[in-house]
């Protein structure tokens, strides 16, 4: 394990004041917390929702849970990570409500498909997001969880009730389809 030395914490962490306010159901503190984490978390929610309104619903559900369980939060300086975990869980619940992901019946491919890094120098993040949204829903979900959220195949399997092999298949399938889409996109753009 890599040991990373952290900087000495200030005596009064600004988050502590907000958390105290949220525990007392202070609306102003709740609003501050909401606005502080909105920019970072809305990007995560948008990956799993169809549009910004759906992303807002996921984020609001997550913040409801945050405010209700704020008393359980242990002051270990990882407020962002704690909230992110709740947001991702809400996103997964949202995905589950829209339908269960089926097991893949195709043989598991364990080899990685290489992708030319050169493509990413020509494309923007927004265009990639559009391309990922056009993937089959299950593939896009698993791909996002693996690449952006850093989930392992085992964790994805447990969350979505699929096997590790299916998860690996979806990730590879996502990469393959994404590469095709990006190449096509570049050709039409040129």
């Amino acid at each position, binding site marked *: *394990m*890599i040991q990373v030395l952290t900087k000495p914490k200030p005596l009064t962490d600004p988050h502590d004041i907000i958390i105290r306010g949220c525990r007392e159901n202070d609306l102003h503190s709740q609003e501050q917390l909401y606005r502080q984490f909105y920019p970072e978390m809305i990007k995560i929610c948008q990956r799993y929702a169809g549009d910004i309104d759906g992303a807002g619903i996921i984020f609001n559900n997550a913040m409801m849970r945050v405010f209700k369980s704020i008393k359980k939060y242990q002051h270990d300086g990882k407020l962002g990570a704690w909230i992110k975990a709740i947001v991702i869980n809400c996103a997964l619940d949202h995905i589950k409500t829209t339908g269960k992901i089926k097991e893949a019946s195709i043989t598991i491919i364990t080899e990685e498909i290489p992708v030319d890094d050169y493509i990413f120098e020509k494309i923007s993040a927004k265009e990639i997001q559009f391309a990922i949204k056009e993937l089959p829903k299950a593939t896009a979900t698993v791909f996002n969880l693996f690449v952006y959220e850093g989930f392992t195949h085992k964790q994805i399997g447990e969350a979505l009730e699929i096997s590790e092999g299916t998860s690996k298949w979806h990730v590879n399938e996502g990469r393959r389809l994404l590469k095709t889409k990006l190449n096509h996109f570049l050709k039409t753009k040129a």
Partner: protein
Amino acid sequence: MDKKLKQLENQSLPDLSKMDQHWDDLKRSLYPEASIPKSKANNKIFRWIAIASMVGIVLFASYKFFFANNDKFISNDNWERKPGTNPKTDTLPSIKLMPGKETSTIISKDTIKLRTQNEQNTKEQFIVKAKTTEGKEVELKWVAADGSSKKSRDTLKFEPSKEKTNYPPVPVILKGQTTEGKKIEVIAIPMNDTTNKKQDADKKKALQDFFADLEKESQSFVINNERDTMIKGNEGTELYINANSFYPNKNVTIRLQEFYSYQDIITNKLTTTSGEKLLISGGMLNIMAFSGNKELVSAQKEILIKMPTDKLDDSMQLFLDQTNYSQLSSSIIENPGYDTVGFANPINWVPAGQSQNIQRTLPLIQVLNLLDDHHSVAYDRYTTASYLIANNCPLSNQQVKVELEKRYGRYYGRIKVRRIWGNRKRVFLSSNTEWPIVGDSLFVPFETALKYKLISRKDSLKYVRDLKSEDSLYYARVSKMEKKYNFRITNLGWINCDRFYNDYRPKIEFIVNLGDTASNYYTLLVFEKMKSLMNGYVSGNKVIFSNVPEGESAKIISVSIKDGKPIAAMQPVQLSRKTFEGLKFEETTTSEFKQKAGEMDK
């Protein structure tokens, strides 16, 4: 690929357009309208305000009741009375001078008494004017306690009383020269209020004029909209406008301003920031189109822009001006830190999702991977970056460490290396995460290899020789084409070719104390190692530059007006958490300032 996707994702901006709406929805869910809980903190504040108000009312009532008679208040045996003035029978009209407020009263006698409310107000200065009810100004004379006399419109200064028994301070008597019986209005104006405000306004106007003289001239081109047109600017910018881009206008005037040099960017108050993030600029343009006097804000067809550069940077992309002007105007009103005179052009650069479109024709070459692919950075005393070396790397650990220190030693205080076991490229810990490694081989374009110094000088010459075996004219054309950034736009206005400045060092707030009201200065931080400039936030006498890399060398440039003359300071600085003081200002002129700003281009 995953790393690239994450990198792109980190650079993208979130959509905040519906944040307020989403918060309102959540608020309604948390607290239905009928029962929005009042904040406990607010309850406490209201309680204290109510108590304070009641105390204030009681005190005011008692003051009025006990001290209603002015004569009683005046009769203080310790006062030095002028002969002939008996405070008990003194029926002179008086005017109470309130700090920060203009007060006036109409008198029919030609003598009036001015006094302050309490001892704390004795430091205030006032100018007193008098005019008839018809509006004609008349002169009054002071008669101060020491018998000295002055005229109205002189500054009236109440000195703090040295002896505590001499309270309240001796009032000043004004004697008029008007005909007795005619009514006059006496007006007392606090000097700090109007005089300082007027001085500040004059300074800001003069500063505005100073920069107006430095504004870059625009180049005008009249084009025939019915034809394809190519426009070339003085500094090498090319615009390719298709026919009927501005339908239905026939003759269109294109105005172009080019800002490539430090001199132009600084003298035109431009900056390179996107929100709070620093950008490195490859050049800025301001393109406007007019049909007669009517401004055309966009074209119906894409305009191809080619911006010249000395050194091509693959990560450059198009940024556009996304300043919300309605929001900005309310910020100016509410926030004293925003000053339209001392502040820069209020441009917020936002990526347009368009990286530059260059035809890549040079082949890939295989090199040793010595990119900055660390697997962790620890922000301890030294800022330590740790790298994993591929098992089959031909160099020893020590050799790799030396190579990495040569390239990235200025970013990290310490570099650690460790060779991985086995031939696997992946390193598994608790997860299946693939960690980046160095020392393996890469296929990269030749220019990338040069940029990241992945090939030696000898090798680069060999490659240039080998690649030159292509048709020389073709190569020359390709090389020429490679030295321009290409973008396509339809919306006109401000255009910027930039890339985000990625730096692993911790970000700090760098504070500059100007020793004077900072909003009367235009202050800028200029980074010399990369073309990046930023404005700071003004607070009192300080200018605060947020989110800057610690330890980076930069230059502070500040301009203001003193005694009606422009002054400027340009000082190099190392960014640290310590407040920077002692900026040395010297008198300057527009040409001197422009020349000094131009020295940074050398």
